[in-house]
């Protein structure tokens, strides 16, 4: 109200200067906030180290390691699941939750086991995902576990407006949890219900954290982003089997390198009756179902 107008002007200039400065720094730091894959190597290292430290601090666990191991050349992963063996015990589901640090509350499951009627065959319309008998398998039923099919022609990556999700050279479709804006367009596009959203802050007790993390895989996710099966990228890139393969008590799950003619998946594909879910959609999954017997 009062005071020398020049004073006021210089004050305003100062305020404006500060505001411009703040906006500029904000913009600069946003430029740095690129997807990890776009960053130069040394910067990516730094970001990784920061994320690792943050996760350690958040869970109070010193044993946390965060890897960004890249795809090995000459490897494209494939999966095969034996429908004639699966007994619907859901052990894969829970092994996956444990391995991949899915939220316990609210519950997120990357694998969904569908119970089907033998008379109808594979029929999603009449499938039941919430079957709960005392003992499995039940007479007259069979079971179809569904998880991300790692499509080669993936509708989910195509629709993402910010390229927060893509297919890696070894065929794994991944999500950058720091880049996803949570629009859920990919969930509408995925024909297999394989993508899951963090509707609330994921609840993961520190004691249950699997500390062996991959930046594009099982590291704890923030609220408001999408996540999905990554073929246990943190294991398989180190030459181990996915957790679900190891957990299956009847050996219904096979995993390997599709480019290796001697791998088990290749054997299955070449020698068994193989089928693909929703083949007519031309998603070209790297996940095959087969009848082993």
């Amino acid at each position, binding site marked *: 109200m009062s005071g020398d107008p020049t004073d006021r002007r210089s004050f305003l200039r100062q305020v404006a200067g500060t505001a411009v400065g703040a906006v500029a720094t904000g*913009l600069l730091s*946003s*430029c740095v906030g690129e*997807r990890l894959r776009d960053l130069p190597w040394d910067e990516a290292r730094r970001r990784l180290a920061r994320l690792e430290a943050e996760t350690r601090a958040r869970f109070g666990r010193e044993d946390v390691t965060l890897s960004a191991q890249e795809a090995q050349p000459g490897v494209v992963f494939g999966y095969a699941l034996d429908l004639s063996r699966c007994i619907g015990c859901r052990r894969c589901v829970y092994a996956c939750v444990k391995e991949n640090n899915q939220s316990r509350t*609210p519950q997120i499951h990357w694998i*969904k086991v*569908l119970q089907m009627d033998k008379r109808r065959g594979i029929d*999603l*319309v*009449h*499938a039941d*995902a919430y079957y709960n008998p005392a003992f499995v398998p039940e007479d007259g039923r069979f079971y179809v576990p*569904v998880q991300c099919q790692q499509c080669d022609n993936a*509708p989910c990556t*195509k*629709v*993402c*407006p*910010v*390229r*927060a999700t893509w297919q890696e050279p070894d065929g794994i479709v991944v999500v950058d949890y720091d*880049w*996803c*804006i*949570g*629009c*859920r*367009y990919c*969930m*509408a*596009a*995925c*024909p*297999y*219900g394989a993508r*899951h*959203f*963090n*509707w*609330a*802050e994921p609840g993961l007790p520190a004691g249950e954290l699997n500390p062996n993390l991959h930046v594009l895989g099982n590291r704890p996710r*923030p*609220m*408001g*982003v*999408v996540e999905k099966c990554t073929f246990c990228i943190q294991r398989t890139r180190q030459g181990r089997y996915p957790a679900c393969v190891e957990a299956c008590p009847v050996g219904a799950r096979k995993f390997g390198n599709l480019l290796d003619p001697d791998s088990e998946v290749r054997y299955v594909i070449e020698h068994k009756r193989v089928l693909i879910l929703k083949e007519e*959609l031309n998603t070209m999954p790297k996940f095959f179902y087969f009848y082993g017997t």
Partner: protein
Amino acid sequence: MRFHLFARFFVGSARVVTRGNALYWGWVAFLLALVASGALAYADQLQAGLSVTAMRDPVSWGFYIGNFTFLVGVAAAAVVLVIPAYIYKWGPIREIAIFGELLAVSAIVMCLLFVFVDIGRPDRFWHLLPPFGILNFPSSLLAWDVLVLNLYFVVNFVVVTHLVYCGFARRDYNHKLVWTLVLLSVPMAVSIHTVTAFLYNGLAARPYWNASILAPQFLASAFCSGPAILLFVLQLLRRFTSFRIRNEAIWKIAELMAYAMFLNLFLHGAEIFKEYYSDTHHLLHTRYLYEGVGGHHALQPYAWAAVVLNVTAFILFIIPRTRRNFVTLNLGCAAIYLGVYIEKGMGLILPGLTPDTLGEIYSYSPTLTEIRVAAGIFAVGFLVFTLMLKVAVPIALGRFHVDADPAREPVRPPSEPEAEAVPPATAAGT
């Protein structure tokens, strides 16, 4: 000099929007209350995440995206007025085309807000904005939509503010600019709705949306719902201001709406025939909408209400007598608004997502938080529209310009004493 004119425009406009009778203030206060309630609800959502909505993995889009889709239609419908007004120079509509564009601007504001409240990480909104972010163009239809919606907004905003400002400055508007932009806005209006339809249409995972009839049907229904709102607005304007809008203009718009509604019903019927006659698994979504599936009947009453409303409106508008009677005309408008709101909102999103891709049925209905946020966004839109009208109407009437400020008593010409204070009914009568 220029700057001074500009400053006076702003000061004058500010004065215009802060002067009004009790009805005006009551309306503004009502809208502000809704905005506040919506903002509080949104604050909850920011805190607790989208878990405060009823959306879950099986139905991952809901009320917000439904409203977004409906409003894109409202925004696109501005062309219904712009085409005949500018291209065919059809007199009576020409003077009101500007209100269509104001409506488009407000509707786009609401559209962008609905997308914004729907995303899980609003703090990362800038990821969509190159050069700081990455827009997955041309692969993602959502990227296309962001682009065309913003362009459409800018075009309409420029045209409207330019016309209004020139009216204020009492000089002729830049014909070249306005004509180019108006001609541009016609195909753009078609494109925003087409792109929005393609957003759903392109998803092979959702057979209910994966039908090429979607885009034409979107356009047809938009050409009903947008003008329906406008017809209300025009009548209100006529009543509460001395703005003269001829009956023929209103009847002409109503007639155009009848044709659009016929097309809409026809396209809808074609799709329904295909679904029921071929009787594949894809029929499930249509059946979920109209009959209910497996004991889930949540959508059924709404779906049938939409059918009845749309057919009623069509009959009322196609018969000249009922079209010309303002009671039946307004009934028809309300029916269209509601019918299309159901059909293009929840009636499109929910059956598209239910049953989900693995056959699960999740019965979605919006939570109070979602309804409050949505009401808040509608209130923002109506507020923008009201304020813009408040400035544009006196300018269009030649009452508010550089040398005359309707809000300042002494400047008012003596021939129109206290025009603002005259009760609405009398004002309309003069």
